[in-house]
């Protein structure tokens, strides 16, 4: 593992179906993630994806690469922009890339993740610490 190594990327079509599924699995039933009427009433352009779902998808880039997700010892993100999910079969396309940013003496490395929707980043300072 070397600084600058790029991980295989991941492109995900986030659909309404997935938002409902994730709401049930994560027990986060905030209506901004499934109810268009509610979302627009509170000023959003439409239903938006759970930030925690986008975070989880970004984590997959790293755990797919590691093989054993137990080697991911730390993972944090900032939620900077919403992923707006239209009511159609294509949903919202989110593209994830990641690269090794730092290899440390203590047997860990830092991986920086980028998540893009509509050409803009939706996660800030998305970083994972992994056991090498």
């Amino acid at each position, binding site marked *: 593992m070397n600084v600058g190594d790029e991980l295989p990327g991941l492109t995900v079509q986030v659909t309404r179906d997935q938002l409902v599924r994730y709401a049930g699995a994560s027990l986060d039933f905030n209506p901004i993630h499934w109810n268009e009427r509610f979302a627009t009433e509170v000023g959003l352009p439409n239903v938006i994806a759970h930030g925690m779902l986008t975070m*989880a998808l970004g984590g997959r880039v790293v755990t797919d690469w590691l093989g054993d997700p137990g080697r991911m010892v730390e993972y944090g993100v900032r939620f900077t922009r919403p992923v707006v999910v239209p009511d159609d079969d294509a949903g919202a396309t989110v593209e994830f890339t990641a690269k090794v940013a730092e290899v440390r003496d203590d047997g860990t490395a830092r991986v920086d993740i980028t998540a893009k929707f509509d050409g803009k980043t939706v996660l800030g300072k998305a970083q994972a610490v992994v056991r090498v």
Partner: protein
Amino acid sequence: MPLDPSFIGRTYPPETTYEVGRAKIAEFARAIGDDNPLYRDVDAAKAAGHDDVIAPPTFLTVINIRAINEVVEDPELGLDYDRMVHGDQRFVHHRPVRAGDRLQITTHIDDIFVRAGNDFLSVRAEIATDDGELVCTTHAQLVVRGERS
């Protein structure tokens, strides 16, 4: 009205014990589209050195969100939920979460401050087994937008 900084240091003790189930881990993995065998196949998990299937790195959101909401809904704190957004989230895993874990979550308000007219609230949760083994520490920053923004 800004949040009262005297709430810094307040602790919310565990209300219940959450038992991590294999089916819940598999359901969560499916919801994030992740087919990693270590989330569903006990033999694969054991071959990788784990005692049982392990959970995805963000799985503990299933109890973390509820713990955050307990703080958010504390009537004494008086936070305006309609103006609140989840600013950031971090998980520090002391070991992987696995099926069979009996977990308790203790939530702490670490900081309250105002920046550019918005209230910031830093919430930390310590998640441990019911016999006291620390499994994960989570950090969340909640932002309450100011009245004029």
